[in-house]
């Protein structure tokens, strides 16, 4: 379906998708987690598999598969629990709150099926905490955006991190 769009339509779609992703990132950086939940489809799947250092011969085992272990394997209910935790006033790993910056780049629309748009994105999530804690998470992700009125709802986020050993105390933040 993507191939059937003319140039003007593609430019418009690219613009709309990017604006949505930037707005979403801004909500997370501003710690407006409730508002962020409002952007999610009810059937969202938010998933980050485990990555391993493997040889080239073994490369298809680099990431764990769905149904095996992962760092995140969340539905909407679970993401709501994450937000409730952040709001609890006792989420000590985020209070004092971390400072985070979500960068979104290399935005490529790779599929349009019905009202769903698949977007491949490179991300960089930078977080600092307290005096000395610095986390930098870079990776690729595949988002599925579903049309919703004049905007979108996030229906899938699959995150592929460029780290095997996670070099952080925790991942108490939202990617």
């Amino acid at each position: 379906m993507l191939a059937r769009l003319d140039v003007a339509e593609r430019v418009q779609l690219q613009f709309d998708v990017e604006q949505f992703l930037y707005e979403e990132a801004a909500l997370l950086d501003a710690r407006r987690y409730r508002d962020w939940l409002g952007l999610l489809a009810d059937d969202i799947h938010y998933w980050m598999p485990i990555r391993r250092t493997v040889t080239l011969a073994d490369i298809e085992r680099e990431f764990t598969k769905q149904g095996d272990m992962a760092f995140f394997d969340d539905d909407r209910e679970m993401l709501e629990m994450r937000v409730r935790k952040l709001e609890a006033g006792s989420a000590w790993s985020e209070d004092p709150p971390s400072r985070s910056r979500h960068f979104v780049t290399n935005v490529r629309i790779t599929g349009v099926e019905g009202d769903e748009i698949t977007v491949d994105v490179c991300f960089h999530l930078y977080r600092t905490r307290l005096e000395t804690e610095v986390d930098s998470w870079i990776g690729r992700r595949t988002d599925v955006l579903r049309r919703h009125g004049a905007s979108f709802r996030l229906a899938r986020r699959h995150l592929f991190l460029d780290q095997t050993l996670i070099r952080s105390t925790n991942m108490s933040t939202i990617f």
Partner: protein
Amino acid sequence: MLGEARLDPTWDRASILALFDPATGTLDRRVLSDEALYRLELERIFARGWNFMCHDSQIPNPGDYFINYIGEDQMICVRGDDGAVNVLLNTCRHRGNALCRAEQGHARSFVCSYHGWHYALNGELIGVPGQKTYYRGDLDRSRLGLARAAQADSYLGFHFATMAPDAPPLHDFLGEVGRTGLAMVCASGEVEVVDGVQKNVIDCNWKIAVDNLFDWYHVMYSHASAGHSGILDLAGILHPNNQMVMLGEYGHAISGPGVPKEAQAKIDLMSDEERSNAPGPAGLSRLRPKSATELMGPNGVRSLGHPNIFPNLWITLNGMQMCLRLPRGPSKTELWWFTLLPKNAPPQFRQRALRAAIHMFGPAGLLEQDDGENWSQSTRSSRGFSSRRLGQALSMGLGHDEVTEEANGERYIDTCVNEHGQRWLYRSWTEWMAARDWAELEASHSPAPTGRV
């Protein structure tokens, strides 16, 4: 190989034993930050002890390997052509290059990427480029095989290794308490490791990550926000007044909620079918089948707490996960999470169980998120000149409890939330650290406590 390190002059036997005072539960904070103590730990705790390497199911076929550590020494755990598991130091005997660079995988043999020395799965050096032409035939290959762990053995499918030739056999090292702890994983039948070991690194000493697993005091406060999120009912799993502690020789321990004796007596009368339909006692868990009593003992089977196989293997989620705390310097620790499920678990059970593991533990788990910073900040404050002189106060319950001894040899404490496990860990740790070798440790270590504790 062991017992040869020159002891830092600050740390003679007496000064090591003085680092923890069992009479008051006072711990010297330098155990969390001192460089010389850390170097000594690599020899006297890790190389000397039995270390968890991997589970049978992770390396089912000849040539399958998994990389793990004894302290900071990287080990290849590989199944040989004869089906036995070889535990080899991952370092080439020529110039020390690492042979395996992947975390896991499959190999027919190991070839060094530096000059091409070639080793069999059992570590034998089977090929050296230029052996005739450059070495002129005078290289003795039989002396240059990969170094093997001094002993390697398994219990219930869990493979362990030690670098100490004089260490007691694994079975004796584990003792009742260590064996009961491992049996918790297999209490409902044979298990397999789910693909994917979560690994992350925390700026804390490895011991504070270990002692925290006995700490059922912090749960309500540290993890209050997890309770608030709705993921679990903290009070429902905590049972602060039904805690059970088992302290084992060499430092093993199990501590946490326990099924009261009267309640267990009722469970003992139930058939396996009745048990599988009944709700579990701790919200998360199902009732263990009859066969578990055989493996864990009639009292051990009551434990819903956390075993630690000394020094650093934690068993949690009622035996569904194991977490290694691997030392990376006095103030850095890697956490490796293994998840184990019954073989052929039905898909629905599997999905529910994995979600519980992912959502509770690991770096993104709602419970685990809040632990790391407590540990890193406690480690940090053990470096300051003045704060490190304050000691840590591990006195909860000291002198108030009694060890019950059964005719079958089981020993346990039924009590409320307490710090017995932490005290036993540090007491054992000082004894391991003070002893020059296994003979001295055997002669001088405290037996598992009896009577009043």
